C-alpha cells in the first residue's frame, strides 16, 4: 500500500506539467511582475544606457558622433572643477554623516531616560527631517544665513560681528552641512526605537558591576544597537552623496565652487550643456565611489556590528 502510494508520488513529477500547473506553482511571480517590469524599464535599462552614454560624446541636441571613447572618464579625473567637486562631496559626506549620527544617538539616548514630555521633544526634533528637503526650508536657510539674516542679528545681539556665511568660501559649505545635520530627527527616531529594545536587565547587571552611565552607554547600549547604527550609516551615506537641493537653491554651488557637490555638476552638465555623455560618466564615477564605500561598510560589519543571533 505504502509502496504503491510512493510510486504514485514519484510518478507525478515525471508527468509533463501543463502550462496551467506551472502558472499555479509560480503564482507569486505574477504579483511581482509589475515591479519587475518597472525595474527593467525605469532602472536597469536607464543604468545600462547611461553606462553606454558615458563612453560616447552624446549631446541631447548635437547627437552622438563618437562612440567607445574614454575621453569623458579622462576628463572626470583631469578637470580641476570636477576633481574639486568630488573632494567637496567627500568633505560634505564625512562632515555630515558622523555629526548627524552622533547627534541623533546622543539626543535619542537622553530621550530614552524617563523624560517627561518625550513626545513633545520627539516631535520638535523630528519636524526638520520631515520638511528639510523642501524648497521652503532652503529659502528659510537663505534668510537665516544672509549677511543681515537671523543668525548675524542674533550674533550682533551678543556683540559679535558674524561673517558673510553665504559669500565666504570658508563658511558656505558649513552652512550647507548644517542644513543636513539639522535634519537628524529621522535617524534619531530610528535610534530611539532601537534603544527601547535594549533589555533593562543588562543595564541593571552593568550597574551592579559598578559601571556608570557613560560606561553603560559605551559597553552595553552601543554594542547592542550596532545593527541600527550600521543601517543609519549606510542610508545616510547614500543620501549625503546625492545632496542637491541645498547647494542648488541656497548657494548655486558658489562662492568659488566651494559648495559645488558632484550632483550639481552632473545636473549642470546634463541639463544646462546637454552633455549627456559627460554627465553619465560623472554619475558613474560617483556611483562607483559610493558603491566602494557601501561595500567597505558591509565588509567592516564583522568587526563592529553585533547581530543578536551570533551572540547566541
Amino acid at each position, binding site marked *: 500500500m505504502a509502496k504503491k502510494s510512493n510510486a504514485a508520488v514519484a510518478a507525478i513529477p515525471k508527468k509533463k506539467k501543463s502550462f496551467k500547473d506551472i502558472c499555479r506553482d*509560480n503564482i507569486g511571480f505574477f*504579483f511581482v511582475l*509589475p515591479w519587475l517590469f518597472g525595474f527593467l524599464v525605469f*532602472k536597469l535599462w536607464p543604468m545600462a544606457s*547611461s553606462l553606454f552614454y558615458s563612453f560616447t560624446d552624446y549631446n541631447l541636441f548635437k547627437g552622438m558622433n563618437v562612440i567607445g571613447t574614454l575621453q569623458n572618464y579622462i576628463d572626470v579625473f583631469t578637470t580641476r572643477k570636477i576633481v574639486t567637486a568630488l573632494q567637496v562631496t567627500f568633505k560634505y559626506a564625512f562632515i555630515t554623516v558622523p555629526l548627524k549620527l552622533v547627534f541623533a544617538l546622543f539626543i535619542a539616548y537622553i*530621550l530614552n531616560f524617563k523624560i517627561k514630555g518625550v513626545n513633545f521633544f520627539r516631535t520638535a526634533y523630528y519636524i526638520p527631517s520631515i520638511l528639510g528637503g523642501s524648497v521652503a526650508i532652503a529659502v528659510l536657510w537663505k534668510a537665516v544665513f544672509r549677511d543681515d539674516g537671523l543668525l548675524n542679528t542674533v550674533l550682533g545681539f551678543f556683540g559679535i560681528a558674524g561673517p558673510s556665511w553665504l559669500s565666504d568660501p570658508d563658511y558656505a559649505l558649513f552652512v550647507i552641512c548644517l542644513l543636513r545635520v539639522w535634519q537628524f530627527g529621522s535617524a534619531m527616531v*530610528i535610534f530611539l*526605537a*532601537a534603544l527601547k529594545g535594549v533589555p533593562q536587565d543588562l543595564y541593571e547587571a552593568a550597574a551592579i558591576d559598578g559601571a556608570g552611565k557613560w560606561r553603560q552607554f559605551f559597553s552595553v547600549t552601543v554594542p547592542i544597537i550596532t545593527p541600527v547604527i550600521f543601517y543609519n550609516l549606510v542610508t545616510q551615506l547614500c543620501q549625503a552623496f546625492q545632496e542637491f537641493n541645498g547647494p542648488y537653491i541656497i548657494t548655486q554651488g558658489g562662492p568659488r565652487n566651494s559648495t559645488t557637490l558632484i550632483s550639481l555638476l552632473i545636473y549642470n552638465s546634463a541639463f544646462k550643456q546637454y552633455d549627456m555623455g559627460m554627465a553619465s560618466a560623472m554619475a558613474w564615477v560617483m556611483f562607483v565611489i559610493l558603491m566602494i564605500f557601501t561595500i567597505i561598510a558591509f565588509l567592516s560589519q564583522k568587526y563592529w556590528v553585533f547581530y543578536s543571533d551570533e551572540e547566541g
Partner: protein
Amino acid sequence: MAAESKTKHYVNLFIRYFVLILVGLIMVYPLIWMVGATFKSNSEIFSSIGFIPKNPTLEGYQKAMENYGGTINVWKAMLNTFSYVIPKVIFTMISATVTAYGFGRFQFKGRGILFSILMATLFLPQVVLNVPQFILFTKLGWVDSPLYLPIIVPTLFATDTLFVFQLIQFLRNVPKELDEAAKIDGCNSVQTLVKVIVPMLSPAITSIALFQFMWSSNDFMGPLLYVNTPAKYPLAIFVKLSMDADAGFSWNRILALSLISILPSLIIFFLAQDKFVDGISAGGVKG
C-alpha cells in the same frame, strides 16, 4: 550619602532637560521665526531677533497671492502639486502592496535572485538614474506632458523599493495561518490579498502613503526636470522661482509663500505623527 545621590540625580535631570530644551530651541526657532516673519514688514524682518511682529501686517500674504508671469499663482501651484502627489500616493500603495505580497508570501522560480535585485535597488542612487531616465522620457515624449507622466507612471510599478521593503518587513509579522484559513474558505490568492492581507497591513500601508505624500510634495528634482510650462509648475518650483525673482527685497512675500507651501505637509504630520514614527522605526529595525 543618600542626600548626595539625590542631588546628583537632580543635577543629572537638570542637565538632561537643559540639553533637550536648548537643542530643541535651536532646531525649532528658525521655523517659529519664519512664521512670525511672514507677518512682518520687509524693513522689520531682519532688524530684530524676536519672532513676534511689532506692527503685524498681512502685506506678505497679500503679495503672495499675486500672479507670477500672469499664468500661475500659489493656489494653482498647490493644485498642480496635488494633481501628481495624490495619484503617486495611490499608485504606490497599490503597487508596493502587491509586490510585497508576492515576495512575502510565495515561493516561485527566481524568487531569490529577484529579491536580491529588490534589495540592491534600495541602494541605487537617483542621481545616476536622472540623466538616462530623462533621455528615456524625452524619447517617449513624456517630458512636460500635461499629466506629469514621468513623475507619476513609475510609481505604478513599485519603483520606490524602500516602501516595498517596509511592507515586506511588516508582512513577516502577519501570521501565515490567516492566509491558509482564507484558502480553506475558498479564497484564491487575489481574494486573500484583498480580504486578509490588506486589512492586516493597513497601518503599514497608511504609513507608506504618508511618507510618499510628504516626499512627493517636497520633491524638487522631479518637477525641475520634467515640468517646463509655467502654468503647470508645482509649489516647489513656484517658490524657487519667486525667490529668484524677488531675491533681496520682498522677504515677507517669499517666506509667506514658503510657509504656505509646507502647510499641507505640516498639517498631515501633526495629524498623523505617530504613524510617521512607527513607519520609520519599523523600516530601520528589522522585525
